C-alpha cells in the first residue's frame, strides 16, 4: 500500500531560499542545496522548489540550483514558478528535477499541460492550483475559484472543473493550494482538498495552512490527500519530519519510516 508523502516546500529567489532553516546550533542556512540535503537526511519523501525570482535573466540561476540538488539527493523533487514553455520544462527536467509544476501559465495556455505530458510523460507534469473560496454561483458551482498572480486575480474558472480538465489534458498530479488557508497555520482547507481528491483519479498534494501535526493528520485522512506540503512548520524547527511521521504512524497512517 502506498505511503502518504510529507513534502517540504522551499521558496527560492535568486538562487537562495527566502526562509532559511534554523538548526539547533543556531546557524541559519539559506542554501537550497544544503537545505535539500538536510530534508533528504531527515526523511522527506519528496521536495518542492518554487522559484520566485522576479527577473527573467536571473532565473537561469535556478537551473544551477536544480543541478546541485539533483547531485546530492536521491528522492524525487519538483520545480515550479516561472515555467511557461516546453523549453522551460525541458531545461528543468534535464537539470535533474523529476517533475515541474505549472500554475498560472497553464490557465493562460492549457496546451502546456497536454504538450508537456506528450513530450515528457504525465508523471512529470504537476498542476499547481491556487484556490479561493467564493459564494456558490452558476459560474463557480463548487464554491472554489481559481486565482492567479498570488491570489490577486480571479479567473472565473471553477476549481473542480479545472482540476478535471487538467487531468484530461494529461496532468499527472495536482498540488492544491488554498490561498485562504496559506500562511494562517490554522490547518489545511479540508473540504476543498477532499472535494478535489475524491473527484480526480490522480494524486493530490494538499498545500497551505499546516500549523501542527494534527493538521497534517486531518488532511491525509479527512481531506483524502495523498501527500501534505509543509513549509514553516518544519523550517522553523517546531517539529521535524521525523516527529510528523512517527505521530502519523502511531495513528495508523502509512508513511515511509526507514530511509
Amino acid at each position, binding site marked *: *500500500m*502506498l505511503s502518504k*508523502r510529507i513534502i517540504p516546500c522551499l521558496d527560492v529567489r535568486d538562487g537562495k531560499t527566502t526562509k532559511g532553516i534554523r538548526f539547533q546550533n543556531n546557524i541559519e542556512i539559506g542554501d537550497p542545496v544544503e537545505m535539500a540535503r538536510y530534508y533528504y537526511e531527515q526523511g522527506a519523501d519528496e521536495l518542492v522548489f518554487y522559484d520566485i525570482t522576479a527577473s527573467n535573466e536571473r532565473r537561469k540561476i535556478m537551473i544551477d540550483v536544480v543541478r546541485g540538488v539533483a*547531485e546530492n539527493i536521491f*528522492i524525487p523533487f519538483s520545480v515550479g514558478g516561472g515555467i511557461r514553455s516546453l523549453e522551460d520544462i525541458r531545461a528543468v527536467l534535464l537539470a535533474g528535477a523529476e517533475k515541474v509544476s505549472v500554475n498560472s501559465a497553464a490557465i493562460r495556455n492549457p496546451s502546456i499541460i497536454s504538450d508537456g505530458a506528450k513530450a515528457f510523460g504525465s508523471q512529470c507534469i504537476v498542476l499547481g492550483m491556487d484556490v479561493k473560496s467564493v459564494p456558490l454561483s452558476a459560474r463557480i458551482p463548487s464554491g472554489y475559484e481559481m486565482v492567479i498572480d498570488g491570489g490577486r486575480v480571479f479567473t472565473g474558472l471553477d476549481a473542480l472543473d479545472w482540476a478535471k480538465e487538467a487531468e484530461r489534458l494529461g496532468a*499527472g498530479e495536482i498540488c492544491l493550494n488554498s490561498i485562504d488557508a496559506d500562511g494562517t497555520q490554522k490547518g489545511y482547507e479540508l473540504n476543498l482538498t477532499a472535494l478535489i481528491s475524491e473527484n480526480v483519479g*490522480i494524486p493530490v498534494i494538499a498545500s497551505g495552512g499546516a500549523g501542527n501535526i494534527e493538521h497534517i493528520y486531518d488532511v491525509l485522512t479527512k481531506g483524502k490527500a495523498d501527500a501534505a506540503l509543509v513549509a514553516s512548520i518544519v523550517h522553523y524547527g517546531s517539529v521535524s519530519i521525523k516527529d510528523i511521521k512517527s505521530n502519523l504512524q502511531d495513528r495508523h497512517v502509512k508513511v*515511509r519510516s526507514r530511509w
Partner: protein
Amino acid sequence: MIAIVDYKAGNLTSVERAVRYLGYDCRITGIPVDVSLADRIIFPGVGAAGKAVKDLKELGLDQVLKEQFEQGKPILGICLGAQIILERSEEDEAFCLGLIPGVAKRFPPDLSNPALEKIKIPHMGWNSLHILQPHPVLRDTGTEDEFYFVHSYYPSPAGPEHIIATSRHGIEFPAVLGSSNLVAVQFHPEKSGRPGLKLLDNFCRWDGR
C-alpha cells in the same frame, strides 16, 4: 564501464548521477557496440511501450540486448525497462523483447485500498516490497524499505519462478523480476533514497549469477 541504454525513452541523467555518486564509471549511450562492450547494462525508460520498442529497433538495440542477455552479462531493467523485457505489453498492444515470458498489464479500474479509499492510477509514490525469493540485488533490503514508483502498467511474468518480489497497490503485482543474469525493477532505485542506492550498488557488484 556500465552502459545506460539511451533509446530516447525519458531522462536518464538521474540514473547516471546515482551510479556516478556510488563511484562507478558509466555512460549514457544509444550505440549498440558501446552496449555490447560494457561490463554491465542498465536498461531504464519512461514513456509508452509502443514507441519505446519501435525506437529500440530503429537504433538496433533490441538485438544487442537479446545477445547480451544470452551471453550472461548482468542487466538491470528499470520502470518501462522492466515491462518491455516481457513478450508483450497491453500498452499500445506492443510486441516487446521477450527476454522473460509474460505480459505488461494495466492496473484494473475501480480498485480500493484496505482503508476503502479509491486507488489512484498512476501508482505514484513510496511502496514496500514483499520479497518472494532472495536475490543478490536485494541484499540487505527488508520489508521496511520503500521504493519510489510511478507507473500505470505492471509486469506480469508467465511463470512464478521469474517473480522475485511483489508490491501492493489495490492488487498484488510483481515489482522485481529476474531471470539468470537479468533483473528488473518496476520502481526507480535512483529516486528511492538509501535503499535505492543500495540496490544499485548491489547490481554494480553482481556477477550475474
